[in-house]
């Protein structure tokens, strides 16, 4: 049976309040017990309040930690997105720079740096098949002097395009410097290379370079060509092509000389 605490309390306080019982030997015992009981109650209430406030504090702290965690997560996600975008931009800029660093600004053809890389690769792969043609526009200085550098540049670009077009898939062209072009043939037969270079000389000398109204310019090219020989290095191949070009120049220009 559940004790009725309220009724018991009322009974006890009624007894303690009754002056008739004050001389009773059990009165003092009951009174002490009652005071002790009251003290215990108030201690219990105090501990419950303490426990409640402690729980509140923990809940609050968890909430604050949760909020901070959410904030940091949001920032991290955002920073990652921004960082990814920066990396993409950087990668694209690098690719653009790389491409620009391998192209000749005037003609758009591969430049000397690009050709040196290609030479190195081809040389490591299969040096025996390599032909190098060093091509120079004859008396180019005269064109510049007579028509000015802008028209000279136009002629240079046109000659470059014609060489590229005539060589086609047989070889790879680059602007080597000034009015010089270097073509590498890596997988071609000797006859095809010779035929191609003779064609080139004919094509350029037959061409009339013009902007349609102000001028018509004719020019020729000289070509020195070298084919890989045992003990050749890239440098010696280029040097022999250069020497052959020099011979072509000294023997009347507008021709191909093998070195």
């Amino acid at each position: 049976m559940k004790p009725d605490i309220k009724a018991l309390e009322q009974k006890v306080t009624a007894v303690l309040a009754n002056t008739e019982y004050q001389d009773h030997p059990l009165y003092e015992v009951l009174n002490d017990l009652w005071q002790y009981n009251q003290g215990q109650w108030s201690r219990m209430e105090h501990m419950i309040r303490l426990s409640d406030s402690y729980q509140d504090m923990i809940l609050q702290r968890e909430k604050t930690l949760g909020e901070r965690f959410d904030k940091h997560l949001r920032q991290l996600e955002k920073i990652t997105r921004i960082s990814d975008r920066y990396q993409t931009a950087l990668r694209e800029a690098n690719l653009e720079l790389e491409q620009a660093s391998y192209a000749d600004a005037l003609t758009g053809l591969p430049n000397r740096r690009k050709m040196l890389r290609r030479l190195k690769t081809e040389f490591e792969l299969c040096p025996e098949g390599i032909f190098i043609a060093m091509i120079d526009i004859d008396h180019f200085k005269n064109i510049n002097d007579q028509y000015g550098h802008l028209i000279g540049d136009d002629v240079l670009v046109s000659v470059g395009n014609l060489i590229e077009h005539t060589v086609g898939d047989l070889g790879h062209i680059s602007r080597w410097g000034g009015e010089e072009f270097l073509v590498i043939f890596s997988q071609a037969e000797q006859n095809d290379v010779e035929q191609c270079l003779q064609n080139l000389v004919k094509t350029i000398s037959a061409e009339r370079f013009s902007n349609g109204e102000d001028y018509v310019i004719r020019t020729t090219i000289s070509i020195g060509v070298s084919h890989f020989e045992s003990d050749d290095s890239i440098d010696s191949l280029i040097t022999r092509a250069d020497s052959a070009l020099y011979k072509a120049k000294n023997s009347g220009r507008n021709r191909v000389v093998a070195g």
Partner: protein
Amino acid sequence: MNDLKIVSTQSTPLIETDSNRGVIYMEGDSYPENSFEFYSELVSWVSHYLATNSRPLVVELALLYLNTSSIKVMMDIFDELEDAHQSGRDITVNWRYDVDNERVAELAEEFKEDCSFAFNIIGQP
């Protein structure tokens, strides 16, 4: 209240504050060696400004590139501005960028996303 006048370098932006007019001005690239140290004065200035008066604050930005730690600092500052705005403060951010540099606008958009105050991203020719 001491105002800031930090001149720009190649890797740090110009930072100027005007507590009388309630304006912060920042311009340039930001990739300091130690962003938290570099921005500590600005962070203190913002906290102090917000704590000591209730006037509006306008942030004029022409920032271009921010490294990761600079982004973190700016996010913390914007979060503080957002809290102030939630408590009734008048806050405005004007982020100007060159229309040829859309990436800056994209960056500004990321910051704007978490702000409910006036955040204007202004392209300039």
